[in-house]
C-alpha cells in the first residue's frame, strides 16, 4: 500500500506526469469543440444573486476545477447544469447543441452525470443493484442479474475502480461508495461527470485513489467538472480552473501556468498566507484529563487505554489514518458513546459516565464532524440553531420563556462575528451553502466560552479565506486560556495549529510529536508507520 500522506504530497508540486496537451481553444468564448458551454447564466434567490452572468467552457477530456469562496455560487451553477434548478437567464450547450433541462433525468439522457455531496445510494442493495437501478438489463421479464454483474464488473475493470459488484453497499467504506456513484454515471454512459466537493469526506489515501480514477476517465475522453476548496487538489488534478466570486467569474486559469497563491488571490481578492504556522501559546494547568480510556468494539478494542491531557492555552491535535479510533475516542469524550473503562475529567470534575448536559455544564463544547446531522437541526432556522445550548439561560430565556428578540440579536451578532453569508436569520439553516453552515456551528460552540473545545474537521468544506479566519479564531480562543482538542484529516491544519500532536493507531496513541518536531513528511511517516506496525 502507498503511504497516504506522502503520496498526497508527491502529487502536490512536481508530479503532474499525466498532464494532457492543452486543448487548442483554451479560454473563453464559443468553440466548436466544447463539451460543456454555459453562457451568461443568471440565478437569483431572495436577497442573493447566486449566479450573475457566468460563462463556463469545458473541452472534451478535460478536468476542470471550479473554485470560489463559500456562497460564491458553485453548487448553484452545477445544479443548473444538471437540470435541478432553472436559470433565470443564460444558455447551455452540450456537445455544441443547445439544451434546456427541466429535470436531472433529461440531463442524464444528454450524457451528464453528477455525484452529489451526500451520496444517493440504497444501503441495503448490492453494488450491482445500485448501479443498474432504473435501467435494469432484463431477460424473460426478470432482471438479468448475471448480465448486470458482468457489465458492472467490466466497467469497474475498464476504469480501474476496483469495486466488487456483489458487495452490499452498507458495508462499503465512504471512498468505495463514491466510486459506486461514479459507476452509476458510467453505466448510464455519462460523458460529463460533475463532482461537488467529492474529497470533503475522503481520507488522503481515498482521495489519491479517486484522482487516479478521474485521470483514467479523462484519458477515456470523459469530461470532469470538479468543485473543491483544496488548492493542492486543484494543482494536482485539473487542466484548467475557473474561479467564481460573488456569482461572477473572477478568473480563468490554466493550471500548469498558475500558482496556488494566484488562485487564492483570485478567490478572495486579497493575498492569502497559505499553510500558516502559528506560534506557541502560554500553557496553563490541565483542563481535560483522560486516563486509560477504553471503548470496546466487536472483538478488539476501538479505543485502547488512551491517556492524554489537554491544558489551558494549548491545542492538541489528533491525527491518524481514518478508522483508528479517533471517532470513537471523541464520542466517548463528549458523551455520545459509553466508555468501557478509564476516567475522563474536565476541569477536575469526573464526567466519565456523565450525560451530555452535565459535560457541557462542566465546560465542554463540541463541534462534530457531521454538521448536518449531529451538529444542527437542518430544518430549523439559522437563529434557532445558533440559540441551541444558550436557550436555557438569560438573556435568551427570561422566567422560563424564550425571548425571540434576544434570539435574533444573538444570531445577528454571531453571524457578523463569523462572517456567515446568510440572507435572514429566520431562514432554515439548510439554505446556507456548505461552508457557511459549518461556520454557524463553529460560531455557536465557540460562543459558549467553554473551558474545553472539542472540534472535529473545523474547516471541512470551508473556503481558504475562511479557513484562515477560522484558524485565527481558534488560536485566539486558545490564547484566551481555553483548551482545544482538534481532530482533522488535513495534515497542514493539524501541523499549523497544534502545540502537540497525538498520532492514533489501532485505538492507541502510537506517537506523540511536539510542535517543533512536526512537519508534513514526519507526520505522514508517523501515521503510515503506525498504521503498518504490528498489532
Amino acid at each position, binding site marked *: 500500500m502507498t503511504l497516504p500522506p506522502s503520496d498526497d504530497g508527491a502529487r502536490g508540486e512536481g508530479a503532474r506526469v499525466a498532464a494532457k496537451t492543452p486543448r487548442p481553444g483554451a479560454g473563453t468564448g464559443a468553440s466548436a469543440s466544447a463539451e460543456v458551454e454555459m453562457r451568461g447564466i443568471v440565478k437569483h434567490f431572495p436577497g442573493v444573486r447566486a449566479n450573475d452572468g457566468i460563462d463556463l467552457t469545458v473541452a472534451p477530456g478535460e478536468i476542470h476545477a471550479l473554485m470560489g469562496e463559500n456562497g460564491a455560487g458553485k453548487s448553484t451553477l452545477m445544479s443548473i447544469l444538471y437540470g435541478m434548478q432553472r436559470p433565470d437567464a443564460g444558455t447551455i450547450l452540450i456537445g455544441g447543441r443547445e439544451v434546456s433541462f427541466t*429535470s*436531472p*433525468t433529461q440531463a*442524464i439522457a444528454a450524457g451528464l452525470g453528477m455525484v*452529489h455531496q451526500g451520496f*444517493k*445510494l*440504497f*444501503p*441495503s*442493495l448490492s453494488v450491482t*443493484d445500485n448501479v443498474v*437501478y*432504473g*435501467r*435494469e438489463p*432484463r431477460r424473460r*421479464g*426478470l*432482471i438479468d*442479474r448475471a448480465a448486470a454483474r458482468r457489465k458492472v464488473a467490466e466497467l469497474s475493470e475498464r476504469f480501474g475502480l476496483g469495486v466488487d459488484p456483489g458487495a452490499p453497499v452498507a458495508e462499503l467504506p465512504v471512498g468505495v461508495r463514491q466510486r459506486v456513484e461514479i459507476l*452509476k454515471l458510467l453505466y448510464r454512459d455519462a460523458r460529463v461527470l460533475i463532482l461537488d466537493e467529492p474529497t470533503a469526506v475522503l481520507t488522503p489515501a481515498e482521495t489519491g485513489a479517486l484522482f487516479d480514477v478521474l485521470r483514467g476517465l479523462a484519458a477515456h475522453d470523459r469530461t470532469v467538472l470538479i468543485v473543491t476548496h483544496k488548492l493542492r487538489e486543484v494543482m494536482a488534478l485539473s487542466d484548467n480552473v475557473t474561479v467564481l466570486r460573488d456569482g461572477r467569474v473572477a478568473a480563468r486559469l490554466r493550471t500548469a501556468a498558475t500558482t496556488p497563491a494566484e488562485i487564492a488571490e483570485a478567490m478572495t481578492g486579497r493575498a492569502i498566507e497559505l499553510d500558516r504556522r502559528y506560534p506557541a501559546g502560554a500553557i496553563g494547568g490541565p483542563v481535560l484529563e483522560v486516563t486509560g480510556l477504553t*471503548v*470496546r*468494539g*466487536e472483538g478488539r478494542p476501538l479505543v485502547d487505554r488512551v491517556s492524554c491531557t489537554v491544558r489551558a492555552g494549548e491545542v492538541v491535535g489528533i491525527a491518524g489514518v481514518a478508522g483508528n479510533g479517533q471517532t470513537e475516542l471523541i464520542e466517548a469524550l463528549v458523551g455520545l*458513546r*459509553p466508555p*468501557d473503562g478509564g476516567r475522563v475529567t474536565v476541569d477536575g470534575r469526573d464526567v466519565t459516565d456523565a450525560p451530555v448536559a452535565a459535560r457541557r455544564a462542566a465546560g465542554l463544547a463540541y463541534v462534530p464532524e457531521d454538521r448536518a446531522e449531529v451538529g444542527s437541526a437542518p430544518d430549523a432556522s439559522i437563529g434557532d440553531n445558533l440559540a441551541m445550548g444558550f436557550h436555557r439561560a438569560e438573556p435568551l430565556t427570561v422566567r422560563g420563556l424564550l425571548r425571540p428578540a434576544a434570539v435574533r440579536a444573538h444570531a445577528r451578532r454571531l453571524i457578523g462575528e463569523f462572517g456567515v453569508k446568510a440572507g435572514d436569520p429566520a431562514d432554515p439553516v439548510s439554505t446556507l451553502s456548505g461552508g457557511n453552515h459549518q461556520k454557524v456551528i463553529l460560531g455557536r460552540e465557540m460562543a459558549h466560552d467553554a473551558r474545553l473545545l472539542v472540534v472535529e474537521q473545523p474547516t471541512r468544506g470551508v473556503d481558504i479565506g475562511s479557513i484562515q479566519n477560522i484558524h485565527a479564531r481558534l488560536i485566539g480562543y486558545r490564547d484566551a486560556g481555553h483548551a482545544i482538542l482538534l481532530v482533522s484529516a488535513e495534515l497542514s491544519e493539524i501541523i499549523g495549529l497544534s502545540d502537540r500532536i497525538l498520532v492514533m493507531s489501532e485505538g492507541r496513541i502510537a506517537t506523540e510529536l511536539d510542535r517543533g518536531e512536526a512537519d508534513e513528511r514526519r507526520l505522514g511517516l508517523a501515521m503510515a508507520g503506525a498504521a503498518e506496525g504490528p498489532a
Partner: protein
Amino acid sequence: MPIDAELLASALRALTPILLAALGGALCQRAGVFNISLEGMMLVGCFSAVTGSWFTGSAWLGVLVAVAATTAFSLVLAVGSVSLKADAIVLGVAMNLLAVGLTAFLLRTVFGVQGAFSDPELKGLGAVGLPGLDDVPYVGDVLGGQSPLVYLSWVAVAVAAVFLSRHAWGLRLRGVGERPDAALSLGVSVTKYQYAAVLASGTLCGLAGAQLALGNVTLFSENMTSGRGWIAVVAVMLGRAAPVGVLLAALLFGIVEALGFRLQGQGLPQQAADAAPYLVTLVALFLSTARRRARRASAPADEHAAPQPASLG
C-alpha cells in the same frame, strides 16, 4: 392436543385473509408507505363481496366487486398519503373507522337488516379439489378442498417474492421505499410506485375480505374482520415485509386461531379463545424487538448486548 389434518385445514382457512392482507401491507411497507388501514380495507372487501354475490348470484362476480370496491377505497390512502403527504397513520385510523361505520350503514340501507346478513340463497365460494392431491392421505385432507382463494394466496406469495427480488419493478419499489431521493435522482417516480403498492394492497385486501365473507363463512356481519387486519399489520412487521416471512407469521396466527376454536369446543371460555391471537401477537412482537435490539446493541459495543448468544450472528 394432536395436530391433525382437520386442525391444519382449519388453520389454512383462518390464515388466508390475514396472509392476503399482509402481503398488501408488505408491498406498501417496501414502498415506504405505512399501511395500517388493512383492517378497514378488508371489511370493505367483506361487504362488497357479499353484496356483489347477492345481487349477481355469482360468488365469483362477488369477488370481482370486492376487488374493485376495495381498490377504489384504497385510493383514499394513495391520494392522501402519497399525493397530499398526509400522515399515513392518521389517515389509516380514519379509514378503519370509516369502514366500520360505512359498512354498518350500507348493511341497513341495502339489505334492510342490522348486525348481520345471511341467506341460504347467498352464494359462497365453495371448495375446489386439487387434482391428484385430494387422494393423498393426510396431505389431501389438509390442502385439498379449500376455497380457490386459498390456493390463489399461495400463488400470490410466490409471485410477490419473485417480483420483489427479481423483477425490475420490484427492485425499483424497494429502492423507492429505502431512499426516495436516490430513486428520484435516477428517474424513477416515487409517486407512481407508491400508488401502485397502495392500490395493490387494496386489491389484495379485497380478496382477503372475499375469502372471509364468502369462503370461511357465507355471510356479512358488522365488524366481521374483528382485528384480522391489525394482525396482518403485525404479520408485516414480524415477517420483515418479506413475502415468505409474512407467510410464516400468518401461519402462526392461523394455527393459534384454529387451536383456540378447537379448544373452545372442549370447554375453553370463548373470551379466552378470542384473545389468544392477540396474546400471541404481543408475545411475538416482544420477542422480535428484543432480538433486534440485542443485535443492534452488539454492533457498536458488544459488552452492552443482552446475553443472547444464540441470536448473535
